[in-house]
């Protein structure tokens, strides 16, 4: 858990005709983080040919993307829904696949064109309606129709038997057809159409023997009739638009199974091709290499031997052996080795950087440090409970999605739990002291009402706790740094750096001196001799760092000559290093006072809201009014949101800048095997 998993490197040589079986096995096991074999040593690239995948990867990716696009229309994400199985891997005819998707695309295009046509009708009818709205009296409109620059208003008659057909024919265009009087065998019709459609409208009118007539004002239709006819038409068009939208969705729904099948096969072929892209070949063999967790070596070996019927050559090496063989520093991928419970903290670490292979994985330390810091800043049972519940529901809603959001919600749940625990320790329940504190009453301490004999009685006591905590975190960071340096065999850095033995010596000594002086209110300081041994000696020892470094590097860089300026450089380097150690460590330690600051702010905000609630009640001691409760509810929500966020961010900041900076060796790369189970 403290160190990432041990890794092994594999170089494999298989016969050409076993390549398919081997690739399938590699994909099925999903264990190997591939490394191009030509990267392992100079000269290999000239002797080996790179193997090109059998299928065009870009085309596969494009087709896969197209399917994802269609499935996204019905809110389906195949990457999350489909479990890949190597048995489903079949050879794929990309042309046929493309034709199939094009078929769906064409059908969709047809529906979209219909939708567009209907939409334009809707827009035109809405435009007619807007024009009608501008116009007060429809009768005047008929007399001066040119005012409606793109509308034609006419009244006329047709034979009653033609009425239905006439209406059907007119329905093809954005028109308003109002029948308002039937005389003998004739129907009087009021027609509004677009001037643009005049030729077609005239044809229909001719077909049904339309006769223009002038009608008496009192008989002409009302504006309301026109509007209601337009509304009816718009409603029908919108219904049709809805139907087409449903149709387009159903089209994808009907094809869902087939699309998912195609996607699965494309994805498998993509992964298959990706593995083969790492192969290098000679005339009759294929070579590949990669990293995997040491504990999985046997599984992969067995599978490869089986796939090749023992006709393969496998060479296993650990990172040190690889470096010896290749004479190059190996960038070994890092596989975290943490339990699922620590995933949120692993996410925080990865967000910063991936630790270098062989160095400490900070995840478990971050988990402890982060939660303690959060608890100190946000100690309240009620607030913690709300935070936990909110985090739980958000986490539950994300249960089907793997990834950052779910991990973040899990972190919120943890923060809620630690806030509950620290709430019990500080005796705070929605800012009220319902039960006695198990450790000390935080609110009482900051307002100066702490009882006699309490562990912590004032703000300074709280600040002292956070300083102690800061010293512990920094000390742990320094110890972890030594472990990393020893494991990396960086002996020079182990002694002569700020985080090494000399720097740490000065830090611990400095801390002791400060506490010694503080006990006597800075009136008494340790004896001068002692000060020399514990502070100045390591400082003086730092003087030999630059010349030692010069001597060690002079072999590698013979062009660097010793001059008088070199002495000046060494002096400057020493001065800067001392400044950095003194001011850096001081700032790092004091930085932890923000934990107390945030905790105090949390408590004071609650006190402020209680005072406001009291004011709303009319004065101290009076029963709360409804406004008092509103203020308290609002205040609690604000404190949970604002302080929760601040405490979360500050805990992260302290981990990243005060803790990680002491020991974390980033610049590693994550273990990413070509895998059937990778959701990305």
């Amino acid at each position, binding site marked *: 858990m403290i160190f990432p998993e041990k890794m092994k490197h594999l170089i494999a040589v298989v016969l050409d005709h076993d390549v398919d079986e081997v690739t399938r096995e590699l994909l099925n096991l999903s264990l190997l983080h591939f490394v191009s074999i030509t990267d392992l040593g100079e000269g290999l690239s000239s002797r080996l040919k790179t193997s090109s995948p059998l299928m065009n990867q870009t085309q596969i990716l*494009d087709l896969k*993307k*197209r399917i994802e*696009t*269609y499935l*996204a*229309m019905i809110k389906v994400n195949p990457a999350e829904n489909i479990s890949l199985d190597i048995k489903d891997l079949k050879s794929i005819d990309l042309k046929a696949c493309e034709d199939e998707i*094009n078929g769906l*695309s064409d059908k*969709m*295009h047809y*529906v*979209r*064109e*219909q*939708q*567009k046509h209907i*939409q*334009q009708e809707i*827009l*035109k009818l*809405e*435009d007619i309606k*807007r*024009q009608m709205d*501008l116009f007060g009296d429809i009768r005047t409109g008929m007399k*001066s129709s*040119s*005012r*409606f*620059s*793109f509308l034609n208003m006419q009244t006329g008659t047709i034979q009653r038997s033609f009425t239905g057909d006439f209406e059907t024919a007119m329905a093809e265009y954005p028109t308003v057809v109002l029948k308002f009087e039937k005389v003998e065998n004739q129907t009087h019709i009021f027609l509004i159409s*677009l*001037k*643009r459609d005049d030729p077609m409208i005239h044809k229909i009118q001719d077909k049904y023997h339309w006769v223009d007539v002038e009608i008496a004002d009192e008989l002409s239709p009302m504006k309301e009739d026109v509007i209601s006819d337009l509304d009816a038409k718009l409603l029908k068009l919108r219904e049709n*638009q809805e139907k*087409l*939208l449903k149709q*387009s969705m159903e089209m994808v729904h009907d094809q869902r199974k087939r699309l998912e099948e195609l996607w699965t096969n494309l994805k498998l072929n993509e992964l298959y091709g990706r593995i083969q892209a790492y192969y290098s070949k000679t005339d009759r063999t294929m070579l590949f290499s990669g990293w995997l967790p040491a504990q999985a070596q046997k599984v992969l070996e067995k599978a490869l031997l089986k796939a090749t019927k023992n006709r393969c050559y496998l060479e296993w090496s650990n990172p040190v052996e690889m470096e010896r063989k290749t004479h190059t520093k190996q960038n070994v991928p890092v596989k975290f080795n943490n339990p699922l419970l620590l995933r949120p903290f692993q996410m925080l670490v990865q967000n910063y950087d991936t630790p270098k292979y062989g160095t400490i994985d900070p995840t478990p330390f971050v988990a402890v440090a982060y939660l303690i810091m959060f608890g100190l800043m946000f100690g309240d049972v009620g607030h913690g409970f709300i935070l936990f519940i909110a985090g739980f529901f958000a986490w539950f809603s994300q249960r089907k999605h793997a990834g950052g959001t779910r991990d973040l919600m899990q972190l919120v749940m943890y923060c809620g739990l630690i806030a509950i625990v620290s709430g019990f320790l500080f005796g705070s329940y929605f800012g009220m002291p319902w039960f006695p504190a198990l450790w000390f009453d935080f609110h009482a301490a900051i307002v100066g009402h702490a009882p006699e004999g309490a562990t912590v009685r004032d703000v300074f006591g709280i600040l002292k706790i956070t300083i102690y905590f800061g010293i512990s975190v920094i000390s742990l960071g320094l110890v972890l740094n030594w472990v990393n340096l020893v494991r990396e065999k960086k002996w020079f850095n182990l002694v002569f750096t700020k985080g090494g033995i000399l720097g740490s010596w000065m830090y611990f000594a400095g801390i002791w001196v400060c506490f010694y002086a503080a006990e006597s209110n800075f009136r008494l300081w340790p004896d001068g001799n002692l000060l020399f041994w514990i502070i100045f000696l390591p400082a003086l020892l730092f003087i030999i760092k630059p010349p030692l470094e010069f001597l060690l590097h002079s072999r590698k860089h013979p062009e660097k000559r010793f001059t008088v300026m070199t002495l000046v450089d060494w002096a400057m380097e020493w001065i800067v290093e001392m400044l950095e150690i003194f001011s850096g460590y001081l700032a790092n330690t004091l930085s932890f006072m923000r934990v107390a600051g945030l905790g105090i702010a949390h408590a004071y905000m609650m006190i402020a809201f209680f005072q406001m609630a009291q004011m709303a009640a009319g004065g101290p001691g009076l029963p709360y009014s409804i406004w008092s409760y509103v203020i308290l509810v609002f205040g609690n929500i604000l404190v949970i949101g604002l302080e929760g966020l601040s405490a979360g961010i500050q805990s992260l900041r302290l981990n990243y800048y005060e803790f990680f900076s002491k020991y974390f060796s980033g610049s590693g790369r994550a273990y990413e095997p070509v895998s059937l189970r990778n959701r990305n």
Partner: protein
Amino acid sequence: MAGSVSRYAFINAKLRARISKMLEPEFISTLIRSPSLNEAIQQLQGTPFAALVDIYTKTGDLKLAELELLKKEISLYRDIKNHVADDVQQVVTAMLLRFEVENLKNTLRLWFESALRQGPIIDTSVYLLRQNILNDIKIDSILSAKTPEDLIDSLKGTPYAPIISLQIPWMLENKSVFRMEIALDHYFYDELWNAIEKLPPRDLDIAHRIFSVEIDVQNINRLIRFKNSYDFSFEELSRYLITKGSKIKGPLLSKAFSQKDAGEMLSILLEGSLSGLKTMLGQMSDNQAGQLTLIEKVLSEYLMQQVRQILAGYPFTIGIVMAYFILKRNEIQTLITILNAKYYGLSEERIRSRL
């Protein structure tokens, strides 16, 4: 110094965060590769342009989706206006005027087509923006105006009534709204320049730099197009150029005008302050349309260079606001170009050549 930090600290952080969320070149490339308009639009799901997916899926109407983009762009200006100091607000307001002027120009073209030429306009008029940007402009009243007098009447209460009124005689005589459009452009640039002049020196310098490029692009375009296509005299053409902020004036202008060939004209226009562009114009095509496209591309690239300089420089200036607007407009234009190209089934190469 402290003043500029407090003026721009918030908006600088906000806009830089937004700039980082703009569509990446890889995404644009994926859009270009999409085989159909529907698939291209669906890919916008999960981006700041997700509203387009909804509109297109429900209506199948690309123009409606474009109208949504325009509304979105306008709302961005309004949003940013709320977060800047008074003098910068005035500049943003003046920049918003561009949308109003462009919408009014489109409306006037349709009114002219409908009222004076009796042509059909409904296919286009339905896609006009019908929301007030700065002034209360009644688009439908303008479109239904029967006479020029009705038109002026419908614009009453807006600053455009006197501008349009002055151009009516020329419009009736020449059967064109050309001068109306030029007058509206002049109004916009005058307002913009007046707002810019009130900025403090550092902001003023940046604003001058950016808008001068834009104005020169307009002027070069007009100079080449108007001289060769309409055979205008020097005096007449000078009237159509934007004077405020332009570096193309005086002897440079008359010298350029005296050239017959568009290429020579360009080469003269790009001397002096725009000389840096000459090197970017390595390959000039022979035909005039090609030259104009090329110069537009080069000037747009020049503008992007200015934006990059602004983003890399001192952050607490109006530059960040202007850089954001330019980048956003560029992003929206790119999106519109790709989606239209998909609608018309253009090949990937042709789309890339148009971007």
